[in-house]
């Protein structure tokens, strides 16, 4: 019994990080109705930033977290102007194709640089023991940081002028523009924020698990499951959706081979799409 409990708690810890990744996806959708198919590649960028900073430059692992937030924001704004800006207000297929193209370019560059072999960053955090069970220190730290970053996002969106402008643009772009809000800049910034969230979640994942250049796809798919659980366009729901997904993974792990987990997840995905098309946690909207 306690074995399952430990597995569930670990699942919840990891799930908070899934939630953070999904927040990036859902924020971009909520503000500009673009599904960012480069999301997975950005998660991988976050992983390799950790690798570069720790293994190549010898920085402390969690020092990579603020670096990645800033870097992700800058990369996001760059990607917005390269591949997203001209697709705003056009049929959704256009932005799907262009962000998919960005995804392929990023993965191609990554493969050329680092090949597709696995990387592992050794992060030393003391683990926590509780009633004879051990919880990995990196998982606890990653979850705590994910919750802190989610809280910072909340403060930004609800208690700063620029954050309120992001919400105004999400609600009604034309009205926001008429209020004097430079909405194009706000869109670029929101895309930057979404990318920063995806990237930093990659950094946190890389403190817990080994990864390759191709790891992004799995996390992209998990983010889709999470957003479907949490309601697309709803950052608060994304965090809860992530925790729910982690919990389900934690529950399932003791009972089935790891290769079955995706089948459970995507079964759930299809079930939620049919049963709760607006998401289970979609009682608030950004």
């Amino acid at each position, binding site marked *: 019994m306690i074995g399952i409990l430990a597995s569930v708690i670990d699942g919840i810890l990891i799930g908070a990080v899934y939630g953070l990744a999904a927040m990036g996806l859902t924020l971009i959708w909520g503000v500009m109705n673009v599904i960012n198919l480069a999301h997975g590649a950005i998660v991988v960028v976050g992983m390799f930033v950790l690798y570069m900073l720790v293994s190549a430059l010898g920085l402390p692992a969690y020092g990579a977290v603020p670096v990645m937030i800033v870097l992700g924001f800058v990369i996001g704004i760059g990607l917005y102007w390269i591949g997203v800006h001209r697709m705003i207000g056009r049929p959704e297929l256009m932005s799907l194709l262009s962000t998919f193209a960005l995804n392929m370019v990023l993965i191609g560059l990554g493969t050329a640089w680092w090949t597709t072999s696995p990387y592992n960053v050794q992060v030393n955090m003391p683990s926590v023991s509780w009633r004879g069970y051990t919880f990995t220190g990196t998982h606890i730290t990653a979850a705590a940081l994910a919750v802190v970053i989610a809280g910072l996002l909340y403060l930004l969106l609800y208690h700063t*002028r620029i954050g*309120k*402008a992001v*919400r*105004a643009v999400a*609600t*009604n772009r*034309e*009205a*926001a*523009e*008429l*209020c*004097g*809000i*430079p*909405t*194009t800049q706000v869109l670029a910034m929101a895309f930057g924020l979404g990318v920063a969230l995806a990237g930093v979640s990659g950094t946190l994942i890389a403190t817990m698990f080994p990864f390759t250049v191709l790891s992004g796809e799995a996390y992209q798919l998990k983010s889709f499951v999470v957003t479907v659980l949490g309601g697309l366009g709803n950052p608060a729901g994304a965090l809860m959706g992530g925790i729910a997904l982690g919990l389900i993974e934690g529950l399932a792990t003791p009972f089935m081979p790891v290769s079955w987990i995706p089948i459970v997840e995507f079964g759930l995905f299809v079930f939620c799409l049919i049963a709760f098309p607006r998401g289970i946690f979609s009682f608030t*909207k950004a």
Partner: protein
Amino acid sequence: MSEILLQVEGLEAGYGDVQVLWGISLKVARGTMTTLLGANGAGKTTSLRAITGAMCPRGGKVVFAGEDVTWLPAHAKAARGLVLVPEGRQLFNNMSVEENLEMGAYSRRARQHFRQQLDHVYTMFPRLKERRNQKSGTFSGGEQQMLAIARGLMAMPEILIIDELSLGLAPVVVQQLAETLKGLKASGVTVLLVEQNLHLALALSDYAYVIAEGRPFLEGPSAEVAAKPEIRQAYLGL
């Protein structure tokens, strides 16, 4: 005649393949209230949107306070004080009253006067002050229109352009808003008004333009326009 604050010349605009405006021209003198009239579908909303940059004009010229602003984006025009209260109010429904007003004062110029202007609009609309922390989505039509006007005022407008002041509102509320507009005009705000209620529009305004099918049809001091028989013709859409 006082200074011309807003001058529109030969404005053309449309949607996709459909051209809607075929050369709209008008002038608004500082400190006056001007009305733009026309039947449903005549192109009033389109004119206002093209003037304020909510949509891109296809031709013509918009001169505001002596500056050619035709091709500026809407937010830059709003920052200069060319402010539209759009048709259908277009509030940020999942934000509170005060957040809506804060967004209204987004430009750097308006931001500097935020506190003082907030007090001003709360005095003008005490109901909004009572409900400052409520989300605007739950409001009655009249309250929403008050908030839309208040949000426009937060931008420190040189000219306040209002599209459909009274649409869907009870007569009492319309009367109240009319008083508000008179007060605004008395305090020196220039107004360009589009209004379904012909009598109200002509009674409030100093000068009127009537357009039909996207073209100028008639213009003159409001009292004279009110007396002309052609105005009914324009309103029946010819």
